[in-house]
Structure formats: structure tokens, C-alpha cells
């Protein structure tokens, strides 16, 4: 069961990684994911280079990292301070790696790997990313659970905890819903050309004279407006009508010519 739950609400956690995506033909965007900081970028690079997190090839990863930062700058993406701090750290580690290893003197512990602190941070960070993922799964499952609707059992207590603001909010939401519904209905009720033509003919028969300005103004959508315009042209072409315009740029009326 859980499986279908997650399927329904899924967004692919594993794939939200730092990557360059081509958003559209003219826009290359660096998609780092909202959460991605320098540690995420490093983890991504390590994974992409198929490197071992416990034995990071610092020189190679540093180069890739800097390449990324430069690309961000080229793409005019504000590079957050944290990325630059990490760049400095990487360069420092890289240079320390290049130094000849001091031979460990008697009784001393082996000199610490300059990468160790970074490795620890990456591991901890990775852990919390997985913890976040597990939280996400939990929340997803929990979103499939509903508690009961409000009940009004408390007959003895005429007091209610709603305020005028609750009332207002309920009203606003309802009106929004109402509006949405009406718009939906308008959408569904959109006329065909045949209907528009039929309506216009009927209207002309009754009113004898139609103001085009008024007619076009009454149209609910661009599509209806176009249909109305085509219908007028069609009527002018096929029936005994005339178009009158009293003033230049004035209103045009469509008039039935009595035969």
C-alpha cells in the first residue's frame, strides 16, 4: 500500500541533484536544487566522478568544483559566499596534499589526513540528507491520513470559537471557489461558430439593428470576439444587411434591409 502512496505523491528525491539543465532553447540554467550548498555540490561531483568518498581525489574534485563556480559566474548566477569558502578550503587541502608527508616520528600517531575534516562533514551532511528523505517519506504517508470532519456535538455551549475573521475568510474562499466555478462553466460553454451565427441572426431579426461596438463588448472571451466578427462578415456576405457608420471611427451598426 505504501508503495502506491508514495507513487502518487512522488517527486524524485534521488534526482534532485545539482545539475545543469537546459530549460528552454535559449536558456541554460544551473539547477542546484533549492537546498544545494557547497557540500551538495561536492557530493554530486564525487558521485559523478565515481570517486571514493573516503579517498577523495582532491586535485581532480577541486578542479571540477572550481569549474562549476566559474560556470555559475559565467551564467551570471550569484555565487553564495559558502561556495567560495568551500573553494578556499579545497584549495588549501589540495596544497597540503602536495606537501611531502612528514615521516611520523616515534610514538606519534600518523599525521592526520588533511581531507579528514572534510570527509567527516560530507558524511554527516549525507546522513542528514538521508534523514530528510526519510522524513519526507513519513510526511507523505501521513498526508494520506485524514482526521474526522468537524462535529457540532456541544449543544450545551452556544459559544463558538470562530471569529469574524474566520467568517470573512470562509466567505472569501467560497467566493473564490464560486468564481473559479463560473469561469470553468464559461469555458465549457464556449460557443461554436454555428451557434454564434445562429444567435446573431436571431438577434438581428428581432432588433433589426445591432451596434457592433456593443456586440463586441458583450463577448466574454477573445475567442467569442473572433467568432462574432466572423459571423458579422458571414452575415454581410450572405444576407440583406448593411453596415452603417455615421462618424469616422464611430460605432458601426449592422442593419437588416427589409425587402
Amino acid at each position, binding site marked *: 500500500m505504501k508503495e502506491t502512496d508514495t507513487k502518487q505523491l512522488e517527486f524524485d528525491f534521488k534526482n534532485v541533484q545539482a545539475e545543469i539543465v537546459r530549460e528552454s532553447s535559449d536558456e541554460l540554467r544551473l539547477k542546484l536544487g533549492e537546498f544545494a550548498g557547497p557540500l551538495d555540490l561536492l557530493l554530486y561531483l564525487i558521485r559523478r566522478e565515481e570517486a571514493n568518498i573516503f579517498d577523495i581525489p582532491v586535485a581532480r574534485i577541486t578542479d571540477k568544483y572550481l569549474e562549476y563556480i566559474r560556470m555559475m559566474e559565467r551564467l551570471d548566477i550569484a555565487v553564495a559566499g559558502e561556495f567560495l569558502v568551500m573553494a578556499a578550503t579545497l584549495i588549501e587541502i589540495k596544497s597540503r596534499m602536495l606537501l611531502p608527508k612528514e615521516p611520523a616520528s616515534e610514538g606519534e600517531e600518523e599525521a592526520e589526513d588533511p581531507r579528514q575534516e572534510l570527509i567527516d562533514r560530507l558524511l554527516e551532511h549525507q546522513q542528514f540528507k538521508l534523514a530528510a528523505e526519510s522524513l519526507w517519506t513519513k510526511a507523505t504517508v501521513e498526508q494520506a491520513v485524514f482526521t474526522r470532519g*468537524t462535529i457540532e456535538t456541544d449543544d450545551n455551549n452556544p459559544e463558538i470559537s470562530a471569529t469574524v475573521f474566520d467568517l470573512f475568510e470562509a466567505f472569501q474562499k467560497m467566493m473564490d471557489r464560486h468564481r473559479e466555478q463560473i469561469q470553468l462553466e464559461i469555458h465549457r460553454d464556449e460557443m461554436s461558430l454555428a451557434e454564434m451565427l445562429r444567435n446573431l441572426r436571431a438577434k438581428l431579426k428581432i432588433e433589426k439593428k445591432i451596434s457592433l461596438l456593443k456586440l463586441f463588448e458583450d463577448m466574454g472571451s477573445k475567442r467569442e470576439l473572433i467568432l462574432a466578427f466572423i459571423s458579422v462578415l458571414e452575415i454581410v456576405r450572405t444576407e440583406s444587411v448593411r453596415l452603417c457608420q455615421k462618424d469616422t471611427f464611430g460605432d458601426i451598426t449592422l442593419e437588416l434591409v427589409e425587402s
Partner: protein
Amino acid sequence: MSEKDKEPSSHKTSEPAELESAKSRSTTELEAVIEALIFVSDEPLPVRTMAKVLDEKKDAIVSALEELSSEYAGRDSGLQIREIGGGWQMSTRTEHHEEVREFLKTRPSAKLSLASLETLAVIAYKQPVTIPEILEIRGVQSASSIKTLLDKRLIVSRGRKDTVGKPMLYGTSRDFLIQFGLKDLSELPSIEDFEEFVG
């Protein structure tokens, strides 16, 4: 009953009963999902609504409801499922009302259901208003909310509208003003009052 007439004819004629139920629920599953719907509903839930949401026949819904209801009665539950006000509702059994009341007293005050709050909002802002007009705005039946609001004396009837069917008009009561801390209706918040919060 006209229910059967409304059933999509394609269902009726083309496929055997087994295949036809789109969701192919077992009786137990149907009862379970109906139980869930009644539970989350703010108001007594009409059979027609369940049939629509679940894409099942009304007959199937009704027999599942009856089964469910008698199951609740049979297992000495603290709850009951019963038909009330044109719909099905889950509620506590009268046996436990004393304890329930005792418990509810520990809470500050009863909440209005969203349904009732919405209905009250429409009446407050559009009064005097008829039930069909409320239906038009809310998009759902409000009969049981109207009853609740009348019981709580938050609304009163204000005569009848002079149109077809002479429907009853409703408006808010003096108690409404008192409970919501308003001097008069002009004190109801308007859109303008909220614009400053948005910015």
C-alpha cells in the same frame, strides 16, 4: 425510486457485474471506504454523493451502509452510523453522552463546522438570502448547516422572498452580533480591512 434510471446505461447492458465496478472493490473494501468518507465529512453524507465519489451504484452503497451500521451496533461500539437529515453520519452513542459532555467541557468552546461557518458567512454578507441562493454560492446543500445555525440562534428567518416558491429568507440574529463581538453588521470586516495585512 428513480435511482436506477440514472445509472449509466452502458454499465447496465454491456458488462457482467463482476467487471463493471470500475474500482472492483470487495464488499469489505466498499464498507471501509464508506466508513472513511462518513468519518471525514462535515455534514451527514448523502448516498448520492458517496455513489458519485466512489463510482458505485446507489444500491451497493445503501447495502454497505446498512451492513456497516449494524456492524457498529453489533460490536458495542462507542460510535454509531445512522441516517440523519438526508445523509449518513457517524456520531457518539447516547449512552456515553455524559462522559462526552464532561470531556467537551474541558475545552474552551465548540467549533462550528466549516460547512456551517461557510453558510453563516454567506448569510452574514448576503442577507437576506434564500437557501437556493446559498446553494448557488457554496455549491453544496446547506440544509443541515441552516438547522445548526438556527439551533444556535445565530440566524433567523426574515420572511419570504417574493419569487417562485416563495423561499424563506434568512439573516443573522442579534446573538450573532453578540457572539462575534459586533456592534452592527457594518462592522463586519470587508476586503479593505485585509489589504494592509497583505502588503
